[in-house]
C-alpha cells in the first residue's frame, strides 16, 4: 500500500483534510473545466510541485502510483485515434483524432496527478471519522472504518496464503493457478467471517455494546489555511482565462 504509507509519512499529514481537498480538488476542477491547453498542464504542474515540494512525496512513489491510471489513460486515448466502419474502411485513422486524444489524455493525466497528490498526503484514518460530519449515516461510517482496518489484516493474510501456495507449486501452470486462486478466495472468505467473530469477542471485553465510538484528534480548520489553499487553483484559473481573453483580443 504505497499511497497509504506515503500519506502517513508526508509532513502535510497534519493539515486538515479540507485544506488539501480545497487545494487539489480546486486544481482538479481547473484540469477538467478550463480550456485543456494550457489549463491541464498548468494544473498538473502546480499539483506536482506541491506534492513533490512542500508535501515531500517521494517522486518514485508518485510515479509508481501514477503508472496504472496513466496506462489506462493512454490505452483509452488510443481508441480515439481510430475510426471504425467509416467511409475510409473498417478501421482507419480518425480525422483530427490526434488532437482529441491529446486533449483527453492531457486533462485526464492532470486530473490523475491531482488525485494522487491528495491521496499521498491525506491518510484515510484522518478522513473517515469526518465523514459523519459530512452527513454520512453513523453506522455506514463505522462500517467503512472497519473495512479500512480489516482490509489490511485480510490483505496480509492473502499474501501469506499465496506465498504458501506458491511454495507448494500452486501457481505452476494455468490449471493449478485457477485451483489455487479459487482456494485462496474461499479461504479469505472463511477467514473474514472468523475475523469478524473474533473481533466482536475481543471488543466486547473492551465494553463494546454496539457503538464504535473513538476520540478523533481535533485539528481545527483555519479559514486562513483554507483561503491559502484556494489561492493556487484560483490563480491557475485566472491565468488561463486571462491568457485566453488576451489571445482572443484583436
Amino acid at each position, binding site marked *: 500500500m504505497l499511497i497509504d504509507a506515503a500519506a502517513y509519512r508526508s509532513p502535510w499529514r497534519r493539515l486538515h483534510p479540507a485544506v488539501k481537498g480545497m487545494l487539489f480538488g480546486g486544481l482538479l476542477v481547473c484540469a477538467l473545466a478550463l480550456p485543456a491547453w494550457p489549463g491541464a498542464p498548468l494544473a498538473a504542474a502546480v499539483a506536482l510541485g506541491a506534492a513533490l515540494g512542500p508535501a515531500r512525496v517521494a517522486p518514485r512513489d508518485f510515479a509508481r502510483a501514477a503508472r496504472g491510471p496513466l496506462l489506462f489513460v493512454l490505452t483509452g486515448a488510443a481508441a480515439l485515434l481510430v475510426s471504425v466502419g467509416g467511409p475510409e474502411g473498417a478501421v482507419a485513422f480518425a480525422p483530427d483524432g490526434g488532437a482529441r486524444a491529446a486533449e483527453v489524455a492531457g486533462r485526464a493525466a492532470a486530473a490523475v496527478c491531482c488525485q494522487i497528490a491528495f491521496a499521498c498526503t491525506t491518510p484515510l484514518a484522518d478522513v473517515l471519522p469526518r465523514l459523519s460530519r459530512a452527513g454520512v449515516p453513523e453506522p455506514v461510517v463505522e462500517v467503512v472504518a472497519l*473495512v479500512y482496518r480489516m482490509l489490511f489484516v485480510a490483505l496480509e493474510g492473502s499474501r501469506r496464503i499465496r506465498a504458501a501456495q506458491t511454495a507448494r507449486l500452486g501457481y505452476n501452470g494455468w490449471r493449478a493457478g485457477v485451483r489455487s486462486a479459487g482456494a485462496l478466495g474461499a479461504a479469505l472468505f472463511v477467514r473474514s467471517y472468523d475475523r469478524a467473530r473474533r473481533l466482536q469477542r475481543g471488543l466486547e471485553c473492551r465494553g463494546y455494546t454496539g457503538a464504535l465510538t473513538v476520540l478523533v484528534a481535533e485539528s481545527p480548520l483555519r479559514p486562513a489555511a483554507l483561503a491559502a489553499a484556494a489561492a493556487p487553483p484560483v490563480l491557475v484559473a485566472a491565468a488561463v482565462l486571462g491568457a485566453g481573453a488576451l489571445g482572443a483580443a484583436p
Partner: protein
Amino acid sequence: MHIAEGFLPWQHAAAWTAAAAPFVAHGIRTMTLAVRADPDSKLLLGASGAFCFVLSALKIPSITGSCSHPTGVGLGAVLFRPPVMAALGTVTLLFQALLLAHGGLTTLGANVFSMAVVGPWAAYGTYRAVRALTRSLPETTALGLAVFFASALASVSAYTVTSLQLALAHPDPADGFLGAFAAFAAVFSLTQIPLAVIEGLVTVVVVRLLSTV
C-alpha cells in the same frame, strides 16, 4: 476496469453519479437498517467489505502469462445480494481510488454504476435464470454452471457498460457513438473476455469449496 480520474467530461461524471445514486442510497439504507436492527452485523459488514477489496486485488492467472485482477463482482453479488453489493462495492471502489489510484473520485459514480450496480444485478439475474433452467441437473453441476455464467457475465457486462460510458463521453466524430463504442469495445474485449472466463472458473472453485465447509 476502472475509468481513471478526469477521463470523463464533468457533465458525464455528474450524470453517472446521479444514475448510480439511487442504487447506492438504497444499498446504504439497507445496510443502515440491518446495522440498526443488529449492531453486531457491523463487524460482519466490515469483514465483507474488506473481503471484497482483497478479492479485487487478487492476482489470477491469465492467458498471456501475466497476472490480472478479478472484479469480484459476481462472487460478491451471489454471496451478499445486489443491494448490499451496491454499498460494499462503492466502499471498495472508493478505497481503490484513494489507496491504489484505481479509478478516480469524479469518475466514482460511473465506476459504481458499472461495477457495483450493473455487474451485481447481471450476476444475480444470470444466477437465478441458470438455476431455473438447470433444475433437472445434479446440484453441483447446476450450481457450478450458475456461478460460472453469473460471474463471467457480470465481468463482461461491467466492461460493456464501461465501454458505453467511454463511447458516450468521446463519440467518434465520423460515425458517432456507435463507432466509438466499437472502438472501445474492441480495445478492451481482447483482454476482458478471457479474463471473464477465468474469473468465472475461479469463482466456481471458490463456491464449491465454500459449499463443502
